[in-house]
């Protein structure tokens, strides 16, 4: 599978070796790291919920489409699920191509689409003890008794 959902740490060294290809001249990697702040709040940890069957099949579709559109040789992506700590790699996208332009374009397109097309949700845990689903406010236009709060 070129799209993988993993509950173990991402092994960037192994992934890089597995993409080695003497016909390829360019290799571009994007990693998303868990950082200690987001939108002005101090983040302590986070967790990803993933609906795995569709995350994998949609991810495969994205990789196939992007390779076709860019002419890259190969691409792989891994996204974490479950609990992550600061500094952990949440997502890894690697692309090999004959020349660098295709690899840069393909890597960017894949991560852009992973972020908006796969059924993956991120819950941030803040230093102040609060927690919340990221970006949910785009959908929830009106208040509700069960709605969590983004402010403590």
């Amino acid at each position, binding site marked *: 599978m070129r799209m993988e959902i993993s509950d173990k740490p991402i092994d960037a060294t192994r992934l890089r070796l597995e993409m080695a290809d003497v016909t390829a001249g360019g290799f571009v990697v994007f990693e*998303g790291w868990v950082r200690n702040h987001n939108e002005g709040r101090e983040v302590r940890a986070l967790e*990803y*919920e993933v*609906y795995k*069957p*569709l995350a994998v099949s*949609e991810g495969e579709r994205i990789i196939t489409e992007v390779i076709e559109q860019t002419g890259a040789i190969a691409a792989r992506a891994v*996204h974490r699920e479950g609990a992550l700590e600061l500094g952990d790699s*949440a*997502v890894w996208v690697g692309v090999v191509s004959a020349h660098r332009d295709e690899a840069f374009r393909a890597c960017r397109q894949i*991560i852009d689409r*992973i*972020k*908006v*097309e*796969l*059924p*993956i*949700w*991120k*819950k941030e845990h803040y230093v102040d003890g609060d927690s919340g*689903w*990221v*970006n*949910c406010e*785009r*959908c*929830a*236009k*009106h*208040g*509700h008794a*069960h*709605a*969590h709060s983004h402010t403590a």
Partner: protein
Amino acid sequence: MKSVSVEYFALFRDRAGRSQEVVETAAEDALTLFRELEHRHATSDPRGHCKVAINGNMADWSDAVNDGDTVLLFPPVAGG
């Protein structure tokens, strides 16, 4: 009336207080079903940022809902 299995994810599950339920509905399409369940997910209009899957495949909000279907309701995603 038809019987539809509905699954809630992430924020929707937290709001609904459940991950799954079977509902009886006359809704013809996913959008109508979503609106009937507003008391669960607390979102008036899913279009643009929420997604729906029917029987294991990503679907459109205008897609038909049939008796025995499984409908997955996805709040706005945030991968990466």
